[in-house]
């Protein structure tokens, strides 16, 4: 019997994905476990394995199609010798009745996570979108992607008014972009690059963060010489093992210890309550060709420098290849963004919700400092903490940062 192959939910938060590449052609034999396609999600490219065996009868979604809602049929698998159906079996019934439009087109373009049927189909715990039936229908009629909407109903449920607001915003954007077009015609030199999934996610999340999370910032200058000296000694003793500890590794360890000592920053704010985490899971921002990703060192406070170093290196390498598993970059209780390698003096980072704080680390550089009434040179680094003021008050942020400075300036506790 012909079965539909549905767009998989490759991570708990995945709502849509881009079909980057088909790894099988129509007519190819498929064994369970064969790689069918590469799917690009908001954060990574993942391989999609076949579960059932058969012949890839029909590809419904061409390579390069973006924003395919999870559970949309993307291909039809048939048994040997079986006739290949034109259309997937799992088109929501409303669309079938619609008749006119070609069915497979509907299944690709329309169907923004429609009707209960699809959610029943997937066994994964994908993030459920709360939306009223009326709003869902309106969104579908207007081709609005509900994943991009913010609900104002109870528990963020999307209501009719949110669709109306979304449509208004969309028509506003359209006007802008048409006026933009005329500029483009005059200038004749604008290249239009459609957003990648990741770009859209970054845009949405950071806008949400900067507009909805009240940020405040505290900075300190930290003297790095002791830490650098310790690092040289450690690396000299580990040279035979091929281990090389970086300043970044040591900062991850220092931040983890500081969070353990003062857990007030290891929290998240929700509308009704504060979440206090016992684990310290540090997310580190890694830039990758199309944006950035934040792989996570779990329980960093319980790991040695050597473990942190190995893990950070492995995660960064795989992050740049787009090969991280979802659980390796989702979650995290605190983030570090290190731009030291770019030689910047200081910067402030945007909080990565639902986390409540992020530490921005700038470059270490020789600066004149006054010690015991005398000017001398020291390697100084400015660290700026961005904090969600709903969760964490100013004094706590400042105290925590001072503690971090003490840990870095007296670095032996990082190794014992």
């Amino acid at each position, binding site marked *: 019997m012909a079965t539909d192959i549905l767009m998989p939910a490759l991570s708990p938060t995945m709502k849509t994905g881009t079909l980057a590449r088909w790894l099988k052609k129509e007519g190819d034999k498929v064994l369970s476990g064969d790689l069918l396609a590469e799917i690009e999600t908001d954060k990574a490219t993942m391989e999609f394995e076949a579960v059932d065996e058969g012949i890839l009868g029909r590809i419904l979604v061409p390579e390069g199609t973006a924003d395919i809602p999870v559970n949309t049929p993307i291909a039809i698998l048939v048994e040997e010798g079986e006739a290949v159906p034109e259309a997937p079996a799992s088109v929501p019934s409303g669309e079938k009745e619609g008749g006119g439009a070609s069915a497979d087109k509907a299944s690709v373009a329309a169907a923004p996570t429609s009707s209960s049927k699809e959610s029943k189909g997937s066994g994964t715990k994908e993030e459920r979108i709360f939306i*009223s*039936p*009326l*709003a869902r*229908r*309106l969104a579908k*009629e207007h081709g609005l992607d509900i994943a991009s909407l913010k609900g104002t*109903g*109870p528990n963020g449920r999307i*209501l*009719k008014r949110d669709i109306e607001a979304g449509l208004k915003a969309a028509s506003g954007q359209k006007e802008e972009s048409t006026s933009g077009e005329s500029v483009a015609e005059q200038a004749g030199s604008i290249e239009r690059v459609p957003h990648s999934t990741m770009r859209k996610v970054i845009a949405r999340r950071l806008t949400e963060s900067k507009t909805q999370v009240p940020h405040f910032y505290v900075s300190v200058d930290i003297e790095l010489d002791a830490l650098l000296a310790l690092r040289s000694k450690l690396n000299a003793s580990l040279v035979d093992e091929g281990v090389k500890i970086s300043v970044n590794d040591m900062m991850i360890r220092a931040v983890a210890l500081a969070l353990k000592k003062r857990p007030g920053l290891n929290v998240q704010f929700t*509308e009704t309550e504060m979440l206090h985490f016992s684990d310290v899971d540090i997310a580190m921002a890694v830039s990758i060709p199309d944006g950035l990703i934040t792989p996570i060192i779990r329980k960093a406070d319980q790991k040695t420098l050597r473990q942190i170093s190995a893990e950070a290196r492995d995660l960064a390498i795989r992050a740049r290849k787009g090969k991280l598993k979802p659980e390796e970059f989702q979650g995290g209780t605190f983030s570090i963004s290190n731009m030291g390698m770019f030689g910047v003096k200081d910067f402030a980072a945007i909080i990565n919700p639902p986390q409540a704080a992020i530490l921005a680390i700038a470059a270490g550089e020789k600066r004149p400092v006054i010690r015991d009434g005398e000017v001398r040179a020291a390697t100084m680094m400015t660290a700026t903490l961005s904090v969600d003021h709903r969760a964490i008050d100013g004094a706590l942020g400042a105290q925590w940062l001072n503690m971090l400075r003490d840990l870095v300036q007296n670095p032996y506790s990082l190794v014992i």
Partner: protein
Amino acid sequence: MSNLFDLIVIGGGPGGYVAALRASQLGMNVALVEDAQLGGVCLNWGCIPTKALLRSAEVYQSLYKLKEYGLSAENPSFDLPSVVKRSRDIAARMGRGVAHLLKKAKVKTVEGRAQLAGRSGDVHTVSVLKGGQETTRLQAPHVILATGARARQLPGLETDGKLVWGAREAMTPDMLPKRLLVIGSGAIGVEFASFYRDMGCEVTIAEVADRILVAEDAEISMQARKAFEKRGIVIHTSAKVGSLQKGDDHVSTILETPKGTVELTVDRVICAVGITGNVENLGLEQTRAQVERGHIIVDEFCRTDEPGLYAIGDVAGAPWLAHKASHEGVLCVEKISGRSPEPLHPRNIPGCTYSHPQIASVGLTEEKAKEAGYRIKVGKFPFLANGKAVALGETEGMTKTIFDAETGELLGAHMIGAEVTEMIQGYVIVRTGELTEAELSETVFPHPTISETMHESVLAAFEGALHI
């Protein structure tokens, strides 16, 4: 004990006492000031006692239909004082219930008349008076006014407590008038007309609008009129009541109607021509709160223009319904406590009239939906085609639904007939949850129930009802 509270509620009706209970639940230290009886108009002089009376009338009327059911009884009769006593006892019992709930919630209840006595900084002072003398002063950063409303008095038609009754006299009659004129055909007027007719009075309704129950859908209003007329109630619409000539024990007047003038002599008149808010002597003058046509102006979270001062329920304007008052009480308190409650949407507030037949509705009437520019689909289903209604002997009635043809949104639902006041909530949930005709069609309604008409009416609006 300190007189400083987190919240002071003025008025212990369904608006005020529910606000106090919710506030206590949210951890606030609350004081509630009530001048008369806890439970307000609703429990003591409104919703509950009238429903008790209407129940007596309903049971009494059914005695005359016993033959239809194969039963018989000799000489059905009633004892008016006992009927009234039952109603008063029920009201008293419910009132004690409220007192108990407030006590359990540790709400400090204070007897007396409350008046705002100024604000310094964030703190309002409320003065409590008894017999014109101040007995205590309370302070709180938040004060909710839930002082309710009273019957509107029209010049020439003022109630006098003897020949011209207001709702209070009408629900505690010392005699059964043989002939009764009810002025006004809103829910209250129609309920009294229905009660007294069932008890055997000759009842005339005079309504100034061109139909009775003018807030209801025109078709429902028409069906209600027919049903009342069938039971012998005389109804004059577009009627103007002339001056009331009071005799010893009767009242004469002249009704001007489009069909000519009608001379009328009755034993009693019930005047139910609307409601006006209790906004006087509250000390509002020294605040920024605004009063317009008898009610306090508030925003969607019941806030007045005066910081820390709120108004809920009847005193804050229409619709004058107990459930609206309570709901506002809850959302107002939740807003004060920093939550983000959903404001009340007028189109999602049901309205019920407990006459015989009952009438219940939510949302837009057909007329209003068209006026608002919707392309609509209308479905109707008569009780006559419903098995349960037939089995009950209650075939008079209809369920009507109005949908937006484009989106399937339920714009309005209107019901008339037995038990409709118990059923309308189904459609209210549809509106609040933004369900569409699709979910309604998919819903399994139990058989046999009158609620099946709610299903069939939806089917009728789209692909056709099944049982007609």
